[in-house]
């Protein structure tokens, strides 16, 4: 009996009526050894975690705040859906909004998935399939999200292909449900959005693992180097190379080129957005100009001699703006080709000549390893050729521009923040530039004001020029993104969290579309650092946290240590480093409770929701990526407080504390279903002012499984902060008291009295004990879950 081994279907001789189908044929080394028994949901697709999503959505009911009340996606429309009417295809307003939420998440997740795929292709080609993924001896669980979702333990680069294949499939599978005539139920759309958010964290983790491994970024060191950040850190006498975007590859090539040719001290390389963060992880000498809201400022200032763009969050008028000022642009990504000619394979000397002479405004170079030489040489030649012009405009021009203003207030109505530019102009006409200076702190430099000005005043330039001194003097230090939280750091904080010396974890992440001054993020976060919360940050927030210095000239990163510990400020890195934060929550379940991670999403998310007191703060989210990242955190049971612009994402997840039937758990220890205090009572909710945000953050750190010491410290801060910023005790403090041991020590008597007088609780005054009143009494063995299968698994 002989047979050929092929994939596919074939029929064997000597066997009758037998069909044999072979699945995969692989070589032995790739065979997986059992590193842990697999959980119930390896590589889940849309319906696999639907039950978990439903549990979340029942408690945290979606609230829709429509931007538009019509849909114009198909030719039967446009359809008006107001008051929840149905459109021509039968979809109603609520479902249409949920559909948009899913679309936004898809866009965001795709950005990261494509970025990861791009990095993986490059890494596999240049470093090989067998390149090891190793994050150092203190990080045992190197890929918590990948392990949890895919059930894979990636040890080598090659293993990540399977991960991205799954992500990309998943995204397409959700994308097609957006088509007209698909989903009818808005909760099912939300479930799909959750699915996409989860995939996003997997894609981001893949991307960051790759870059940390092959480019030797910091691997969880608490004392990662401090990076110079801010407008004023650039030495404008040298040629300045500005890199904007999210993909490290071109920037790395530039950095390498500089070093290989001994030019690090001759040329300034500075970045905007995540590229900046990642470049500084690669090379601590690289500088960071700032966040997304600094892009137009940086370009208009004219300090750049060449601008290199890659992908995501880059202004769509970059080429126009740069060309106006004679700054050559090198685009390096298919995602943003800018209409530029693709000259990847041509002779660099010719390209450089064309750019420097002005024959070409810009070029597209698709190969990142060719960008370095071209960008550096162009920058140097441009610097030699052109003189230095004053930033933004000449001194005399400023007065002339301001004089043009007729106070029509068109700009006020065009500005996303409705800033009173008219008032600033009017004061400036009298020589008072103070309002402009104040505006500058809030201005995101979007340029919409200029688009509507009937006198074509260069308003952004005016704002920047009049605040030039403070703009330039804002320099700071940011700690380089260190990537993962070490497993030992997590073990280290277990006892303090249980014993109440660390009240919680706050994670400021995301974009800089803040409601007011950029400084507010630092103010909010410092309030928590002083109170010994742990702070972990990424992205534009991580940059802005480093931008402000105190009276002693120290930025927050210099004032507070970089360890994942009480009062520590940890910068995990760029936007793709967010999974280190979600990963830390996942690791808690494995490190302390030895809950298996492999393919065990729902159980771990349920664990996190009930126990891990972590809250995200996205004070200025603007992008679709932010929507997707937040949704991914939410599915894991981690809530987030967002800034007011985030109301425009259309959907929030806010529970109703007064609906007692929604707040229940199964207690594995007593084997009972019981009512529980409503914490967290929202997964995604907006706050309007920094004072409100601070109180909400403290509030959303409470969890049902808190020990009495943990609850006491959390309530102490919640009540303290509420008194400080709201002027009173918070409305709902009594809901979170389970026993007298939960009460803040210095207020114990006062609070016991209030419980008795205002809420009718029964107090034993002799022993100072609470006899009756709490939603439930405290029990240290309380072991909550909202999943029946987890309950069945662990109760004997």
């Amino acid at each position, binding site marked *: 009996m002989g047979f050929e081994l092929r994939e596919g279907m074939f029929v064997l001789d000597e066997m009758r009526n037998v069909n044999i189908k072979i699945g995969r044929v692989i070589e032995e080394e790739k065979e997986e050894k059992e590193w842990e028994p697999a959980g119930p949901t390896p590589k889940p697709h849309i319906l696999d975690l639907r039950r978990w999503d439903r549990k979340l959505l029942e408690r945290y009911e979606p609230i829709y705040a429509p931007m538009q009340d019509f849909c114009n996606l198909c030719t039967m429309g446009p359809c008006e859906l*107001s008051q929840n009417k149905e459109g021509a295809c039968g979809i109603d307003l609520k479902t249409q909004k949920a559909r948009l939420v899913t679309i936004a998440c898809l866009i965001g997740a795709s950005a990261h998935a494509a970025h990861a795929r791009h990095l993986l292709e490059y890494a596999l080609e240049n470093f090989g399939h067998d390149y090891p993924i190793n994050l150092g001896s203190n990080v045992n669980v190197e890929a918590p999200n990948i392990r949890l979702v895919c059930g894979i333990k990636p040890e080598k680069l090659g293993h990540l292909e399977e991960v991205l294949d799954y992500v990309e499939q998943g995204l397409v599978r959700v994308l097609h449900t957006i088509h007209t005539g698909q989903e009818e139920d808005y909760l099912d759309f939300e479930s799909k959005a959750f699915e996409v958010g989860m995939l996003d964290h997997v894609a981001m983790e893949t991307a960051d693992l790759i870059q940390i491994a092959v480019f030797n970024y910091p691997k969880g060191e608490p004392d990662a180097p401090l990076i110079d950040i801010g407008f004023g850190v650039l030495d404008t006498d040298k040629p300045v190379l500005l890199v904007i975007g999210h993909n490290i590859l071109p920037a790395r090539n530039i950095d390498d080129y500089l070093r290989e040719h001994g030019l690090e001290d001759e040329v300034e390389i500075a970045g905007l957005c995540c590229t900046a963060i990642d470049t500084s992880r690669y090379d601590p000498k690289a500088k960071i100009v700032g966040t997304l809201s600094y892009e137009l400022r940086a370009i208009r200032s004219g300090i750049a001699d060449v601008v290199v763009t890659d992908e995501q969050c880059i202004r769509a008028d970059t080429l126009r703006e740069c060309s106006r000022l004679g700054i050559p642009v090198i685009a390096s990504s298919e995602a943003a080709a800018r209409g530029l000619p693709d000259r990847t394979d041509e002779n660099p000397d010719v390209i450089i000549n064309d750019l420097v002479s002005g024959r070409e405004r810009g070029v597209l170079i698709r190969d990142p390893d060719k960008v370095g030489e071209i960008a550096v040489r162009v920058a140097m030649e441009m610097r030699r050729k052109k003189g230095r012009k004053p930033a933004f405009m000449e001194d005399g021009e400023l007065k002339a521009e301001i004089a043009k203003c007729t106070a029509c207030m*068109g700009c006020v109505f065009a500005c996303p923040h409705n800033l009173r530019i008219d008032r600033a102009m009017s004061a400036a006409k009298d020589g008072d530039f103070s309002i402009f200076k104040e505006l500058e702190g809030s201005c995101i430099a979007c340029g919409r004001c200029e688009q509507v000005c009937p006198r074509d005043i260069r308003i952004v330039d005016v704002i920047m020029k009049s605040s030039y001194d403070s703009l330039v003097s804002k320099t700071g230090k940011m700690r380089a993104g260190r990537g993962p939280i070490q497993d030992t750091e997590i073990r280290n904080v277990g006892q303090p969290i249980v014993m109440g010396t660390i009240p919680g974890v706050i994670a400021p992440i995301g974009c800089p579309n803040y409601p007011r001054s950029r400084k507010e993020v630092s103010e909010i976060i410092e309030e928590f650092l002083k109170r010994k919360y742990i702070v972990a940050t990424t992205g534009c927030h991580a940059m802005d946290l480093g931008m402000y210095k105190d009276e002693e000239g120290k930025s927050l990163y210099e004032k507070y240590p970089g360890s994942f510990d009480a009062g520590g400020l940890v910068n995990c890195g760029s936007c793709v480093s967010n999974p280190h934060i979600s990963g830390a929550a996942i690791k808690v379940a494995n490190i302390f409770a030895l809950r298996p991670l492999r393919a065990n999403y729902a159980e771990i998310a349920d664990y996190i929701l009930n126990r891990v007191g972590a809250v995200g703060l996205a004070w200025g989210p603007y992008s679709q990526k932010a929507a997707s990242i937040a949704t991914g955190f939410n599915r894991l049971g981690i809530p987030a407080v967002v800034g007011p612009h985030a109301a425009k994402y259309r959907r929030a997840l806010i529970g109703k504390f*007064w609906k007692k039937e929604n707040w229940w758990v199964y207690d594995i220890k007593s084997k009972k279903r019981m009512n529980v205090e409503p914490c967290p009572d929202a997964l995604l909710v907006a706050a309007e002012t920094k004072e409100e945000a601070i109180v909400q953050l403290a509030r959303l750190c409470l969890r049902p499984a808190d020990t009495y010491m943990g609850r006491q410290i959390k309530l102490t801060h919640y009540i303290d902060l509420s008194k400080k*910023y709201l002027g009173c005790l918070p*409305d709902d403090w009594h809901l979170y008291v389970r026993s007298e041991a939960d009460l803040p020590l210095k207020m114990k008597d006062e609070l016991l009295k209030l419980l008795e007088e205002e809420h009718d609780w029964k107090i034993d005054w002799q022993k100072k004990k609470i006899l009756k009143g709490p939603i439930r009494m405290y029990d240290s063995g309380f072991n909550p879950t909202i999943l029946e299968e987890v309950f069945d698994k662990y109760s004997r």
Partner: protein
Amino acid sequence: MAEAKRKAKKPPEKLFNTADVQASRSAMLAKPNVLVKMIKRAKNPVLITGGRLLEDRRLVDYAVRMHDSGIAVIATGASSKLFIERGIRPDACVFSLHYITQFLLDESWQGFRGKPYDLALFLGFEPYYLSRMLSALKHFSKLTTVSIDAFYQPHAKFSFPNTLDLHHEMLEEFVSALGGGSIGKKED
């Protein structure tokens, strides 16, 4: 010379964000005396205040006078501090407008003091934020919403026009008309 330049101008009749357009009804301009009549007819009107009160204390004055004429107050955006300093305890202090909107959307909600609100006035918010919340209330509830804020709010049922620097004058007119005569019913 500076004083003359500071005289307030009537702002243009634009949307605070030209692109915040919806197909459905846009708010009717609210004349103060009409508003007063509506409020007096309502069973449990509530004034919901936002973070702008922290920047403009005059708004607090008007809000206090509205409270004194019998309108309940829900303070969001940390504006509660300003009321408490004046001896007023709002119905709620800690919940943001986002939470309040979610609660108002639920017909079964009995308000913070056991009585559902049937008319909501809004004062002191970032215009783009308030706009979203009013949109939610417009499409998914039957609540009567009134914006007495500085920008015209298209998605409220009734709204002041754009007032900006003339906001205080408009509020003065409204609050004066309100004062005198009982409004709504406080808790029995």
